[in-house]
């Protein structure tokens, strides 16, 4: 019986979460859901950072995670403001319908 968790399991989990985020990013039609998939991807990456920080016995990984969180916050704020503006103009949250380019 294992006494401790092998580090590769954390990385595998990170990969799983990341690919789920990618799948949501590609296949969902609601803008907000796409955005949340992006947040999911960022979280997976954060997990990866902290894991490697444990592996290399450095605290720098934690700091990267911290900065990722800050940037994610800023990005979420601005992105949601953009979504609000798009909704005001197009009255739809479907990303397929916001394109005004002729084919």
């Amino acid at each position, binding site marked *: 019986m294992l006494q401790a968790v092998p580090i590769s399991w954390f990385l595998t989990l990170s990969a799983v979460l990341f690919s789920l985020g990618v799948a949501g*990013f590609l296949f969902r039609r609601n803008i907000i859901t796409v955005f949340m998939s992006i947040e999911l991807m960022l979280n997976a990456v954060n997990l990866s950072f902290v894991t490697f920080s444990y592996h290399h016995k450095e605290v720098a990984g934690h700091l990267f995670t911290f900065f990722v969180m800050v940037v994610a916050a800023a990005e979420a704020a601005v992105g949601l403001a953009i979504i609000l503006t798009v909704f005001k103009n197009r009255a739809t949250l479907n990303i397929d319908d916001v*394109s005004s*380019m002729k084919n």
Partner: protein
Amino acid sequence: MQLWLIPLLPLLGFLINGIFGRRFSKGLINTVAIGSVVFSFAWVLKTIAGMGDLNSSVTEHYFTWIQSGALNIGCDFFVDRLTIVMLLVVTGVGSLIHIYAIGYMAHEGGYYRFFAYLNLFMFFMLMLVLGANYLLLFVGWEGVGLCSYLLIGFYFDKQFATNAGNKAFIVNRIGDFGFALAMFLIFRNFQSLDFATVFHQAPGATEQTLTLIGLLLMVGACGKSAQIPLYVWLPDAMAGPTPVSALIHAATMVTAGVYMTARSWVIYTHAPGAMDVIAIIGVATAFFAATIGLAQNDIKKVFAYSTVSQLGYMFIGVGSGAFGAAIWHLVTHAFFKALLFLGAGSVIHALSGEQDLRNMGGLRTKIKFTCFSMIFAWWAISGIPPAAGFYSKDAILAAAYAHSPAIYWIGVFTAGLTAFYVSRAMFLTFFGEYRGHEHPHESPPVMWVPLVILGVLSLVGGAVFNVPEFLKYVFPAVVEPENHALVMISIAAGAIGILLAAWMYVWQPGMADKLAAAFSAPYKLIYSKYFVDEVYDATVVKPVVGGSRLLLWKGIDAGLIDGIVNGVGGRARDIGSAFRLLQSGNIRSYAAWVLFGGVAVIVVMGIAGGLR
């Protein structure tokens, strides 16, 4: 010795007049142009005075122009007796013609341009004569061809003038091709293009090589000196102003071929086959051109064909080994032919542009100075002693007789024809009744003073300047038997020609037209210059132009090259429009492409650097 001043002064004249001449007054242009040539002439005299007994030659080396492997061409000038003769003719007669041109061109546009081109021509001609190697001679050769083109096409707004300029340049180019091939052969066999080296080694080469070189040099001379089959440009070159015809197409440029073959006498004396060919070409051209000159109605065309014919005589001299006699005829021809042309220019000026003989007549009372000067030229060209042409022509004919009697007899007959057509021109112009409608007036002194000087030279130049004597240190000795019978025969031929012309045009003025009507077919043939231009046009010009248009223009240029260039542009556009489809406006497809790109980068990094 500062030989470089001789060609440099006219070059300076060209540069000054060419760049600033537009703002100069006529007087200043004249001073620069005439001054440069006259000073050049003075420097030639000074050079001669400084050379002592003229038995040694002077070479001046200025800089090495080309140094490439075995090829070493220096910018060298070389003066020996032959060069002195040529220098005196070029600068002396050139100065007189420059002075004449002040009067002739006084009312023409582009005054400064004319004198600039004329000075440029003098520069190139002097380079040709002074050059100590074939390449420098070729530079002058090409340069005078260029100036000929510029000056023939001087009235560039006239289509026939520009066409004539093109024709001159292109036909000359064909000759230059032969010259270039000769230079290649010379270099290959003698590893040098210097006259001294080549002539030193020439006796050691095989006769075949020397014959080939001689023939190729002759091709070049045929182009420049208007021999068969490349003479067709010279009559059309009369489209240029008359001083140009006098200077370039009578006295100096067309004699460059004779000078070049005379300079290469070492090659020719060891290649008798080539010399025979030259003599045959010379006599054929002389006879051929003389027959055409019989029927021409434009006064300048008569003299143009006369020039071709007299050049043929010079080549007879070269071909018979009488190089000194050929150069002698070159000198005397410069005097009397330049005089004939300048006089014709004076007549044309007097008649305000009329050039057709049928509209002239009776001018001897109205333009006396011109008439008397031209009478001396007439005397000289007919070969009547003691005028200049007699001595030189006789020397050539005597040498021809020694070489091949057939050439002599044809030459004599041609001398008769020469006397006939020049007399015809003189009678139609100066005698009888005036058939035109203009008011003839005498030319200003700036025009008739050079005519008088040339007239005096034509009269005494033969007797005074015994050129073969002067040149016998340069050329191999020619044993000339003093055969008085030959001399008498040639004088008689000239006299018969003059009398026949007098009978047909002065005493029985309708005779010429009746004869022309009676022998209408030969007359038409001669009048149309034997349709040579038409034949050339059909056989050479049209196929080349047509082939060029079809194959080179439409086929290769428009089809292949434009196809490639446009094709590249077209393919770029196609690739671009393929990439355009990426920008669909569909956000999800963008996202998909981002992902794809990211995966691709990781894969590439993995393959390249290992999965680290």
